[in-house]
C-alpha cells in the first residue's frame, strides 16, 4: 500500500483593500504525502495560514481564491468535500477555538454529526481518538468545559476531534505556538507518533525553525505569498538556497549561539 498524495496546485488568493487588489498567495503549488510532514515556514504575514484557509475554503471575508485547485492522487476535490473527511485541521489557539459554554462531549458530538457518522459506536470512537491524543481519563474530560482545561489538554482534545474523521491528511496551523515549551514538546511527540502509527500526511505551518528541525521531513519556504524554496529538511538547514531561507535558518541558529551559514 502506497500512501495518497494531496497536491495544492497554482493557488492564488487575493484581497481587495481600499479599492486596491493585493495578492496574498501567489501561484503556489505544493504536495503533502501520507506518512510525511511538510513544514510551511515564513515570516508573519507571508501567507502561510492563508494557504491552508484557501485550500480548505475557509478564507476570511474579503479574501477570494482567484485560482488553483486541490487534488488527491490527481483527482480534484472541492473544499467542502475535503474538510474533515480528507483533511482534518488543528488551529493555533486552543483557548478560542472551542465554544466556551459547551462541554467536550458536545464538541465531539458536533464533529460526528458534521461528519454524518453519529452511529451507535460513537462513544467508543470518541474514547479511542481521545486516548490516541493522550487523553486517558475520557469520561472525566468529556464533561469538562474549556475553562476547566489547560492549553495543552485543549490542544490534545482538538487533535482528538481532528482524528474522529479518520482523514488521511492533517493541516496543523502553528499547533504549539501558544503553549509553554514543555507542553509543546509533548504535543510534538504526539504528532510524530500519529504520523508513524496512522500514516497521516501533515502540512505543518510554523514560524519556529526549532519545530521544523524537530519534526519536519520536507520544508516549503514562503515569502510575500510566493513559494521561494522547497527541499528536504537537511538541505534547508545545511544548504539553504534562497536568501529568505538563509535568514530564517540563521536567525534560528543565532538563538543557539551557533555559526551562521554563509
Amino acid at each position, binding site marked *: 500500500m502506497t500512501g495518497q498524495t494531496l497536491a495544492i496546485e497554482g493557488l492564488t488568493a487575493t484581497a481587495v483593500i481600499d479599492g486596491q487588489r493585493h495578492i496574498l498567495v501567489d501561484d503556489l503549488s505544493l504536495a503533502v504525502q501520507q506518512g510525511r510532514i511538510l513544514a510551511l515556514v515564513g515570516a*508573519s504575514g507571508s501567507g502561510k495560514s492563508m494557504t491552508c484557509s484557501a485550500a480548505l475554503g475557509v478564507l476570511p471575508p474579503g479574501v477570494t481564491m482567484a485560482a488553483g485547485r486541490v487534488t488527491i492522487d490527481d483527482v480534484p476535490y472541492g473544499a467542502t468535500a475535503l474538510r474533515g473527511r480528507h483533511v482534518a485541521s488543528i488551529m493555533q489557539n486552543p483557548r478560542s477555538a472551542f465554544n466556551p459554554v459547551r462541554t467536550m462531549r458536545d464538541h465531539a458530538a458536533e464533529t460526528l454529526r458534521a461528519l454524518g457518522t453519529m452511529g451507535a459506536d460513537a462513544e467508543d470512537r470518541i474514547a479511542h481518538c481521545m486516548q490516541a491524543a493522550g487523553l486517558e481519563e475520557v469520561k472525566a474530560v468529556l464533561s469538562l468545559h474549556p475553562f476547566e482545561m489547560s492549553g495543552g489538554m485543549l490542544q490534545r482534545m482538538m487533535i482528538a476531534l481532528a482524528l474522529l474523521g479518520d482523514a488521511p491528511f492533517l493541516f496543523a496551523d502553528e499547533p504549539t505556538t501558544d503553549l509553554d*515549551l514543555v507542553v509543546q514538546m509533548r504535543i510534538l511527540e504526539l504528532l510524530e507518533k500519529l*504520523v*508513524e502509527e496512522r500514516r497521516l500526511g501533515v502540512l505543518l505551518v510554523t514560524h519556529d525553525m526549532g519545530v521544523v*528541525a*524537530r519534526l519536519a521531513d520536507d520544508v516549503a519556504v514562503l515569502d510575500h505569498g510566493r513559494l521561494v524554496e522547497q527541499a528536504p529538511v537537511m538541505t534547508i*538547514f545545511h544548504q539553504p538556497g534562497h536568501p529568505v531561507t538563509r535568514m*530564517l535558518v540563521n536567525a534560528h541558529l*543565532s538563538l543557539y549561539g551557533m555559526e551562521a551559514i554563509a
Partner: protein
Amino acid sequence: MSLISASNLGKIYRTHSLVGASAGKTVLQDISLSVREGETVALLGRSGCGKSTLARLLAGLEQPTTGEVLFRDKPVSGLDRSDIKAFRRDVQLVFQDSPSAVNARFTIRDIIAEPLRHLTSLDQGQRQDRIRTLLNMVELPPDIADRLPGQVSGGQLQRVCIARALAVNPRLIILDEAVSNLDIHLQASALTLLARLQRENGIAYLFVTHDLRLVRGFASRCLVMDEGRIVEESMVADCAGMTHPASRLLHAAVLPPLPERTGKRLILSGQAL
C-alpha cells in the same frame, strides 16, 4: 548596592464575594532575589509558575502579601514622594501582549509621550525630539508616530512598547515574555537591540521567559521558578548543569538547533510497504 531586590516575597490571592473571602491561593512563596546595575537576570519557568506575578510585584503594580521589595536597598512601601517618582522612572515593565498594553485610541506618538509627560520635565518640543530618537533607537520609521496601534504589525507595536519603556532612561526594564509573541527572527533582533542598549547605557534587565534558548547569549544569570518558588539559580554559562527537576524539564524541552533524524520515517514507512 543592588538596584532592586526582593526579600521573602509571598503573594496570596483571595476572591471575595457576598458570602465572604475564599481560601487563599498561594502564588508566590519565600522569593528572594536581587538585580544589580547593568546586569541581565533571566527568570525561567513554565506557564502558571508565578513569573508574571513576581514581575508585577517588583514593578510595584501589586503589593506583596508578605516580604518586601527593595529599591536601592530601601523598602518600596516606605519611599517618600521623590523616591517613588525615581522608582517609577527607573523601573519599567514591558508586557507580552502589546495590543492590550497600549491605549487603542492613542497614536504611537501619544503612547511614547505619556511617560515623558508624567515622569520628566521636557517641554513639547523636547518631547517630540525624544520620540524621534526613541523610534530610531528601536529601528522604527519616524512616520509611524501618527498611526494607531491597529495600523501597525505586532512586531512593530512590541518595539513601540520597548521605546515607551526606554523613554525615561530607566535603570531596569522588566521584560515579561516581551519577545515571545514575535517571529523568531524578530525575537533575535529585539534581543540584539536590547543588548546593544545595555552596552551603551548600562540598563539592567530582568528577562522573564519560558524559553531557555533566548537566555543564552543574553542573560548572565538565571533563576528557575516552579510552583511559586525559586528552585534553582545558576550562571547562564553553567545552566546546562542545573539539577532541579523543573530545570531539567525546561532543558529537555528546548527544540533542537538542527534536524537530527535522517530519513528514519522513510525507513519505517518502507517497512510498512
